[in-house]
């Protein structure tokens, strides 16, 4: 048995879903569309279990975004695998008139409904008293009082579901079916073999959105509508207005409003948070705290994971026999898995904080504050969240772009978010800046190195805005969308809801993006651990005859570096050298560029391997010293002079050097097209910018 959970956004539908199903939920896809489907299971009686499908929140069955379209596509298609036996429509009692619209429409599609009255306590505070018994008798279907937040009334709801599934009761109000429409509805019913008049009219009004009909039928229906001068907009308008009139009648009998409207808490808070000056000051303060918290809190578990992986590698390498297979397990698989795990604390903390901001209702106010400023760059106020999160890590940031309803705004946001300098670029920035920029103060207070670092972040931010502006000019969108949205009242965050969100995001990251990162790590390991010909296979002999006076550790380092030079990755590095030479790089930097494709921070590790520092890869001082010593044989000057270093910095500001990001863009856009375009444009941008930088400073 399938039970659909339907309701307006912010009606408490997701809370109810979590309350009913607990952790027994999974995420799937609705067939043919890019919208996540949440399914859970719930025991409504000791021996009866039902499947509960959480549909995207919607105000009506006339969809305004792709998410909402799913509701129509399933409810208008009795043959859909997700078609429910019963619908629980969750309504917010503080705004019954608007919330009942969806209930009426779903009922008229001949789906047995239960009306779940939520937020009765808030309604009572506003002086709204709802008589649920009266409503049930007026509507002819079960009306259940619940408190989805606290989980009150769940047993009553389960009982109602059980009874409604046994003996179905319907509510009908096809008040819009006057003569004009009923004749036409009969025609469609006969032609397409359907029984419900309201559904027949939906066939006519929204045939374009009903993909399951097939192209032929959609075209036929459009012609039929045209031949009978059926105006879909007028029909929808009639539908809405007449339903509101009917709902008004029901509510007049079942709802009593007392008391005059006072200024609510939400209005008082908004006066401060949306203030012309204080609004922005507070917003910047919140941002500042968010970053501090993410960096400060995530660094501890990240250190533990890092240490744990190190311990595990050490333990396994002492346990397992020395072989290629062991190397693959340790340097390929475990290193790859570690690369995935290390991101989890940042993702988790960022999402905990962001979902608290969302849950409390503050995020909608940020959208209001930023919309005007960011709109000219092809995005909407809703893009602010991903852009900000992108400074920690692009992976969760891109996942959070889902809140953007408009596909074009969302796509532009996804495409430019990786330009925001993420935490992984920090090691590269700091090492190279420390290499060429002296530690001195500007104007007595600002460190020069710190200023340059900030400059790199700003470079990323402004290029994200400019790229967004360019994409706005190029991309065309047929989807008409509106900004108008509800500003939910301020609420205490529901911790269980925060937990579910974080749990789901982390799980998605580990299993979806993690797979790709793991695969790439293994490929990189193979490429840098094997090489063609004598040079690679006899590296030990060649190096030991060449450097006979070295001790064991130094010799091992020399061998490792010689092997890398002659591995497939090394050959590839030299193969691409002509391409990167105009940027001021040699083949060694080339290898680091390639390996850093798995993740940017790999750059530092690879550089340290190439410059044979060996096991003490994390000791910056040694890497720095080595890099400083490295000479450019052609010029006789230092390899990392101002020009090459600046070119590298600029390259990493723009380059899409992150497998995880590409994997997550692939997942979010459901295809390889956009991640490939993103890789292309960011690489081109990085190359050009690095080229210009090097040539100017050379």
């Amino acid at each position, binding site marked *: 048995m399938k039970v659909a959970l339907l309701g307006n956004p912010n009606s408490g539908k997701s809370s109810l879903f979590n309350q009913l199903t607990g952790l027994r939920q999974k995420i799937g896809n609705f067939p043919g569309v890019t919208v996540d489907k949440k399914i859970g299971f719930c025991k409504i009686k000791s021996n009866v279990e039902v499947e509960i499908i959480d549909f995207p929140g919607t105000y009506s069955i*006339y969809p305004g975004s792709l998410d909402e379209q799913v509701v129509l596509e399933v409810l208008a298609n009795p043959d859909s695998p997700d078609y429910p036996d019963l619908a629980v429509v969750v309504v917010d009692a503080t705004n019954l008139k608007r919330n009942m619209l969806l209930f009426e429409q779903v009922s008229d599609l001949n789906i047995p409904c239960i009306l779940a009255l939520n937020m009765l306590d808030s309604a009572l505070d506003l002086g709204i008293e709802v008589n649920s018994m009266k409503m049930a008798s007026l509507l002819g279907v079960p009306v259940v009082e619940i408190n989805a937040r606290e989980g009150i009334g769940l047993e009553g709801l389960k009982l109602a579901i059980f009874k409604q599934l046994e003996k179905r009761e319907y509510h009908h109000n096809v008040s819009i079916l006057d003569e004009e429409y009923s004749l036409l509805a009969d025609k469609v019913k006969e032609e397409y073999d359907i029984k419900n008049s309201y559904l027949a009219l939906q066939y006519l009004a929204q045939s374009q959105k009903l993909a399951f009909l097939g192209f032929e039928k959609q075209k036929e229906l459009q012609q039929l509508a045209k031949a009978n001068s059926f105006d879909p907009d007028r029909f929808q308008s009639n539908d809405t207005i007449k339903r509101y009139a009917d709902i008004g009648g029901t509510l007049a009998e079942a709802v009593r409003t007392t008391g005059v409207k006072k200024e609510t808490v939400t209005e008082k808070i908004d006066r401060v948070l949306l203030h*012309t000056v204080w609004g922005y000051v507070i917003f910047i303060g919140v941002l500042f705290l968010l970053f501090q918290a993410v960096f400060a809190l995530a660094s501890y578990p990240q250190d533990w994971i890092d240490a744990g992986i190190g311990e595990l590698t050490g333990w396994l390498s002492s346990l397992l026999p020395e072989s290629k297979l062991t190397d693959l397990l340790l340097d390929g698989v475990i290193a790859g898995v570690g690369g995935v795990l290390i991101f989890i604390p940042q993702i988790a903390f960022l999402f905990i904080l962001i979902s608290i901001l969302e849950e409390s209702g503050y995020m909608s106010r940020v959208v209001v504050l930023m919309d005007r400023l960011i709109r000219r760059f092809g995005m909407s106020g809703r893009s602010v969240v991903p852009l900000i999160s992108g400074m920690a890590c692009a992976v969760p940031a891109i996942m959070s772009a889902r809140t953007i309803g408009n596909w074009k705004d969302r796509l532009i946001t996804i495409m430019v978010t990786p330009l925001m300098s993420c935490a992984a670029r920090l090691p590269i920035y700091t090492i190279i800046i420390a290499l060429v920029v002296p530690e001195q103060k500007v104007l007595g207070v600002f460190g020069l190195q710190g200023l340059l670092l900030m400059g790199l972040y700003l470079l990323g931010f402004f290029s994200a805005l400019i790229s967004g502006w360019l994409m706005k000019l190029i991309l065309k969108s047929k989807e*008409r969308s509106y900004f108008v949205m509800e500003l939910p009242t301020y609420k205490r965050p529901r911790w269980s809801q925060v937990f579910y969100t974080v749990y789901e995001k982390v799980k998605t990251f580990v299993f979806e993006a993690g797979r790709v990162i793991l695969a790439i790590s293994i490929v990189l390991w193979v490429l840098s651990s094997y090489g063609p010909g004598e040079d690679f296979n006899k590296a030990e002999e060649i190096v030991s005859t060449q450097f006979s006076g070295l001790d064991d550790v130094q010799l091992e380092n020399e061998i490792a570096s010689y092997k890398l030079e002659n591995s497939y990755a090394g050959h590839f590095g030299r193969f691409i050298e002509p391409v990167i030479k105009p940027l001021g790089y040699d083949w060694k930097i080339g290898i680091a560029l390639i390996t850093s494709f798995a993740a940017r921070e790999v750059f530092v590790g690879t550089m340290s391997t190439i410059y044979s520092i060996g096991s003490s890869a994390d000791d910056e001082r040694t890497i720095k010293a080595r890099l400083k010593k490295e000479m450019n044989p052609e010029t006789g000057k230092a390899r990392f002079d101002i020009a090459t270093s600046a070119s590298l910095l600029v390259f990493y500001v723009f380059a899409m050097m992150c497998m995880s990001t590409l994997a997550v863009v692939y997942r979010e856009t459901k295809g390889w097209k956009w991640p490939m375009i993103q890789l292309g444009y960011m690489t081109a941008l990085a190359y050009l910018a690095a080229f210009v930088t090097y040539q100017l400073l050379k």
Partner: protein
Amino acid sequence: MVTETHLTLADIPKGSKAEVIGFHDIPLSLRLMELGFAPGAEIKVDCHAPLGCPVCISLDGDYHLTLRKSEAETIEVKLV
């Protein structure tokens, strides 16, 4: 249809109340009606974001909405 005053929601100052008379943008009006913006509804303008857009308004009860100025301009209202 142009009325004598043709006042739109965008003209209503902060803190004032207005009643919805009609819409100039049909597709947008369908969306607005779903959100409870039917003709006859009473609206209070709570605030304008800095730079005048978006506009924040409230309807009956504790129900708040925000919309862009360009959207507010398509809603014809009269002052209450």
